[in-house]
């Protein structure tokens, strides 16, 4: 095998300019793919992190049927204290869950005593919520970065629209599950930027204030959001939760709970899928570049060396070995191109990290782009290049191996 590599590399060096040009083409393709994956991956991770760490959490547990009517924030589908206790018992036993936060979510009216507007309120535990969504308090742009009883955190645009500022008194009015209306006067404790964009209408209050507004006899929970220790284990933990909660059935023998990852709760998941699809098409382009360039070079190599093929076949070289010679040549060319591509690609990614390019996403501005790429991605792209190169070499190599020595020797 070593001798086949020696011959292949010497044959590549025989046509230095062509080898360098082809390897450069492969390398440029690889650089493009690696940098693209690193930039879009970084953007995607920031986007997902922004949504999960400031609002959604990684996974949520609801009562069965809640998510289907989540836009109405149905109070009739809240979890009873016993159910919450069961879930908490399970969550506390799972080391992959870093933090969790029970929430009461409900729709209400926000009044500044002269005007009224709809608002969606999140009743949360002040000590649990920031651990579950660590970017929540960072979104407070005015006022104290905390959630306090008797106070409300309101979105920036709502504050502007209703002309309220930190310290102002407002009234929140809501209908409870029995249909009776109740209101509570609260102080504006903070104004926050929206995590999702201009349309965000989520306000935050203390969970006990929420229970009081809704006149709950006992604490009923709309959802439990979770933060995982390792985001990469999202689906593993989801499956563990499904398994752990599968025994909890209602009187009809149907599951009481439903578990959703952020992917099923946020429309931004589709954006992340689009980024993945773009990366896939960029990889397809790379495959095409490698396939065409390697195939072209190998077809030329076979054509130029017909007499040599005839000679080695005449002196007894088996067809399989002739095939291997050319395939290894294509393989070596791809490895050469991949090494150059990896070197330059990683260098460009490093430079981009040093340059610290900023961009805006949703309501966030000045986000610093920190492109990064996993070793597994580098290996995958390199492997794609090498496999495609080998496939591209196969046809010319096969042609060389099937050549009749007598005809090849006659070739001028």
């Amino acid at each position, binding site marked *: 095998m070593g001798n086949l590599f020696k011959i292949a590399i010497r044959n590549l060096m025989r046509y230095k300019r062509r080898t360098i040009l082809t390897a450069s083409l492969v390398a440029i393709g690889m650089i493009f793919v690696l940098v693209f994956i690193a930039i879009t991956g970084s953007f995607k991770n920031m986007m997902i992190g922004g949504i999960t760490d400031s609002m959604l959490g990684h996974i949520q547990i609801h009562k069965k049927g809640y998510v289907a009517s989540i836009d109405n924030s149905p109070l009739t589908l809240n979890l009873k204290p016993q159910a919450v206790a069961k879930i908490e018992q399970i969550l506390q036993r799972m080391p992959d869950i870093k933090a969790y936060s029970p929430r009461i979510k409900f729709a209400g009216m926000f009044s500044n005593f002269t005007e009224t507007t709809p608002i969606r309120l999140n009743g949360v535990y002040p000590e649990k919520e920031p651990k579950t969504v660590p970017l929540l308090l960072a979104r407070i742009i005015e006022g104290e970065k905390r959630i306090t009883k008797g106070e409300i955190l309101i979105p920036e645009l709502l504050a502007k629209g209703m002309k309220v500022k930190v310290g102002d008194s407002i009234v929140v009015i809501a209908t409870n599950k029995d249909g009776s209306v109740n209101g509570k006067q609260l102080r504006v404790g903070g104004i926050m930027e929206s995590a999702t964009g201009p349309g965000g209408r989520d306000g935050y209050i203390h969970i006990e204030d929420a229970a009081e507004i809704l006149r709950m006899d006992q604490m009923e929970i709309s959802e439990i959001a979770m933060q995982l220790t390792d985001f990469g284990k999202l689906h593993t933990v989801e499956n563990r939760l499904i398994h752990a909660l599968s025994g909890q059935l209602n009187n009809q023998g149907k599951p009481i709970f439903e578990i959703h990852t952020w992917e099923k709760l946020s429309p931004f998941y589709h954006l992340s899928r689009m980024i993945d699809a773009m990366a896939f098409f960029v990889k397809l382009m790379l495959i095409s570049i490698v396939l065409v360039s390697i195939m072209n070079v190998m077809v030329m190599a076979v054509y130029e060396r017909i007499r*040599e093929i005839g000679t080695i076949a005449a002196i007894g*070289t*088996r067809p399989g070995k002739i095939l291997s010679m050319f395939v290894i040549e294509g393989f070596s060319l791809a490895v050469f191109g991949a090494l150059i591509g990896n070197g330059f690609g990683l260098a460009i990614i490093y430079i981009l990290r040093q340059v610290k390019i900023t961009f805006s996403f949703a309501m966030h501005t000045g986000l610093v782009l920190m492109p990064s790429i996993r070793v597994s991605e580098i290996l995958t792209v390199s492997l794609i290049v090498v496999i495609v190169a080998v496939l591209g070499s196969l046809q010319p190599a096969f042609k060389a191996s099937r050549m009749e020595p007598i005809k090849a020797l006659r070739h001028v």
Partner: protein
Amino acid sequence: MSLIKAENIKKDYQVGELIITALDRVSFEIEPASFVSFVGPSGSGKTTLLNLIGCLDKPTGGTLKVAGADVASLDRRERAAFRGTNIGFIFQDFNLIPVLTVYENIEYPLLMVQSVPAAERKKRVTALLEAVGMIDQKDKYPDQISGGQKQRVAVARALVTNPKLILADEPTANLDHKTAYMVIELMKKMRDEFKTTFIFSTHDQKIVGEAEIVYMLEDGELKGKEVKGGGGNG
């Protein structure tokens, strides 16, 4: 026992709708360790015959046995294996592999065809480099040596596998007379040393004189045989 036995061999080529007979009812026998030449004008069928003996092609008719094997019965893979074990080739254009050194060119059949162990390869290649007088040129590439030197390397490459038979199609055609004689003398010396049968084709009358048995071909037919002594008979 004959090394080569040809009985009424025939070779036709189809060119469009036309059938051209390159060889017609050719019969001969060649004994081991012979030094044989096929002579004849261009188009007489010399190369076709050498291709058949060398298992590069199959006869259309008749029987051709080389080292006991019926050439026509071997498939593509078997013919490659048979050539690798029993036959060495010397080409008119030398056909050395340009990316390999002189040493590596001679070593190639042992390495890539026969998978001979490294120590044995080194022993055989070095012995042949000394025998053909190329030991001091062993690290040079083909484009760094002369035509005569290239053909000496080709002789060594053909001999390195200890084949029963070496076929040389116009081995001196691209050499000047002096070098051509030297190559033929080298081939003869190698025949004496290794007891390998050498068959070469030529149209150079001076070179023909060096052969011990001469077969004359004309229009695809064997027209005569001349035995000059020292070789086998057919």
